[in-house]
């Protein structure tokens, strides 16, 4: 991976962490500020109250966000983000299959807490998860491609790419060029 790609991936990881933290905060805030006797609909897949589901999803988003921000393993961060976004996609497909075309019906608390309509909240959620899914998959692809290039392609500073010696040198370079942690302190 070159420097621009590394920066792009770092930007994505940070932005994803920010979005996940915002999402977790929103879900927690909805649960905490809801009227005492508000009844939330049940999640059609797991059958649990939406309130419980919000705690679970918010907790997971919080965990992944902190992992993205403070972990030394950026690949794992990307994998976690991709896993969460893929889960959302699978749930949307499952819901669509059962006849649920929009999540607006389950996001009735958003207008109460944030003054936006349920349809807007639905669109926002779809955008965020699309960004997370596409971003994480692209980043992972870059990462895999970078490794692939490092492993089998000629290093600009080395001789021919099929020299075992050069490959070894490339391997060594690839290790050092391992994606730096987005927030890694250059002095540490």
């Amino acid at each position, binding site marked *: 991976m070159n420097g621009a790609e590394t920066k792009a991936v770092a930007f994505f990881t*940070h932005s994803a*962490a*920010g*979005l996940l*933290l*915002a999402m*977790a*905060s*929103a879900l927690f*805030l909805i649960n905490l*500020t809801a*009227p*005492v*006797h*508000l*009844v939330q*609909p*049940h999640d*059609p897949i797991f059958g649990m109250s939406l309130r419980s589901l919000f705690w679970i999803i918010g907790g997971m988003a919080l965990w992944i*966000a*902190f992992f993205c*921000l*403070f972990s*030394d393993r950026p690949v794992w961060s990307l994998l976690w983000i991709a896993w969460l976004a893929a889960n959302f996609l699978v749930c949307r497909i499952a*819901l669509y299959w*059962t*006849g*649920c*075309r*929009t*999540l*607006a*019906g*389950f*996001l*009735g*608390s958003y*207008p*109460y*807490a*944030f*003054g*936006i*309509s*349920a349809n*807007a909240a639905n669109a926002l959620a779809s955008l965020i998860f699309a960004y997370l899914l596409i971003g994480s998959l692209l980043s992972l692809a870059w990462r895999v491609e970078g490794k692939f290039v490092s492993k089998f392609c000629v290093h600009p500073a080395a001789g021919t790419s099929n020299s075992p010696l050069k490959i070894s040198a490339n391997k060594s370079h690839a290790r050092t060029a391992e994606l730096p942690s*987005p*927030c*890694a*302190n250059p002095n*540490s």
Partner: protein
Amino acid sequence: MYSLFQKIRSRPLGMAIAVAAPLMVVLWHLLALAARPAHLGKIVAELGSVMELVNEYLNPSPCPNHACTKLVFLETTENGAGVFFSDAPGRRKLLFEELCGGDDYNLLKESLMGWSPDDAFFAYGRYYKSSDWQIVFCDGNTGAEVAVVRCNEFVAAAAWLSPECLAFANIDGVLYIMRKNNDQWTRPKTFKCFRNASYKPPTEGIVGFTAFDANTVVWRQGGTLFACSEDSDAPVKLWESTNDDTLLEFSLARSKFLARFRDAQGEYFANLYPQKENGRIVGVTVANVTRIHSGEFHFTLINHGEGYAYLTDVGESPCTLVVKPDNSHPPMQFQLQDQVQNFVAGEHAIYVVSSLHDEPSGIWRCDLASGAMECVAPNVEKPFACVRNPRLTTDTITNGAGEPLTYYWLSPTHSAAVTKHPLVIGILGIGQYFAWSVNFEAFANCGAFFVSLDRHQRDSSQWADDAFAVYENLARRPDMDTNKVFLFAESAGAFSVFELLEKNPKLWRGAILFSPSSFPEPSQIPGSRIFMDNCGDDKAFGAEGMKVPMRFQDAAALAGIPVTLIIHPGLGHASSWPVAVRERLREAMIFLNEN
């Protein structure tokens, strides 16, 4: 742990994002809170503190003394229900408060038992400390308790036969009598005929229980007028309805009856003259038949039987009290802003629970001699600080079928800076008519027009079409925001709201439903937004209880319809427990102002 802390410290960008993202969300939430109507909390607190003056046909209140100088009345309180005594206009004293929390808030267990003929005492029935049914005798001048007698059940109706003799009936129609001997009130004793196990009283509720003379009481059960003495072998049927001629109500003053009937030609009122044998009433003869309009009701003798008064909902105002003091004076009319079902007549005055000038319903006294109306027991003791009284307007339009439709509408009270206002079209439940209501006031105080239709003579199948006709008429107004038209319903009115949502789902911004009792298939109302407030112990849902609205909410969510559902645990249908009222109002007003 230390290394984790070090790692977090070493990444300032991560820390910044970790702090900034939640802060931005909180900020967004605060902005949303700021966008809610100003003074929402105060408006809800003030309106939610308005209590209900009991004014039931079966449990008449207020109860004035014969001289019409003092008053006993029932009113809900913050914690239950209270029996109040008023010895002067504007003054009140709480004699007894039944603490009944939220569960059985609307199940009134107190009943007023009237004043002794000499006004020296009055009595009321109560449920004491959730264990004992009691009859309490109070001093007529001070309201102080002078005697308490245990009885075994709720007192449904009572009549004083003399200062020392009180007759009453329980909810099953069994009559009791109690006497005062040596300054002590005896335990209640059943009338002779009710001691006979073979006698089965009618199952209908007792209405109009009144003393005919010192030994006899008369009352109506269904369409039959009865009379009975303590030692009678059986109650006497004075008048029995037939399929062609039905007794609807009666009034008695000094052995003279006035009754309202319905026959094939419509309704009429007439005098009933008692027929006596051996000094006892055995029947009545009907005379002086006068035809009346449908919508004129509660004919009551006043002024010692010289005149009469009645209520009518025919005309521009929700209700009119008509008083004809005697044959020599023309009738006086009093326009009441609230629909009332009942009034109580004393010797010199008539008492009615209603409002005249956009204020919460209070007890109004109409002096028979002068015709002056005075509020003797206002509902709220202090005027509202934040709530403003909206202007009530009555209008009549003609619908597509050429029928006149009357509707009442309240203008927004806080309208200085905004040129267009949301519109809320209200459809009330069965048997509910327009009256001052905290719900309507809340809509107007949160910046919306509120419209309610007059539904007298209108079948429930016509309510939705009527509401739509009124909407079409009002939508032409320049100050009406047609992008923000909400539907509001209480109880059975929800059926009509769902009908409107089905016909024009895109037209309405949302529906606010209090205690809805039926739900449509969500796929029939696509694109709706619904706010529902239900009570947890609503008998309308049968054994399934709250699963019914929750199931509708789940089905609606799958159909993409957000349903904000509030359920107040343990409360009965459309409970008016103040705590629930405040929560209901607050959440409904927030829903009204959401984008």
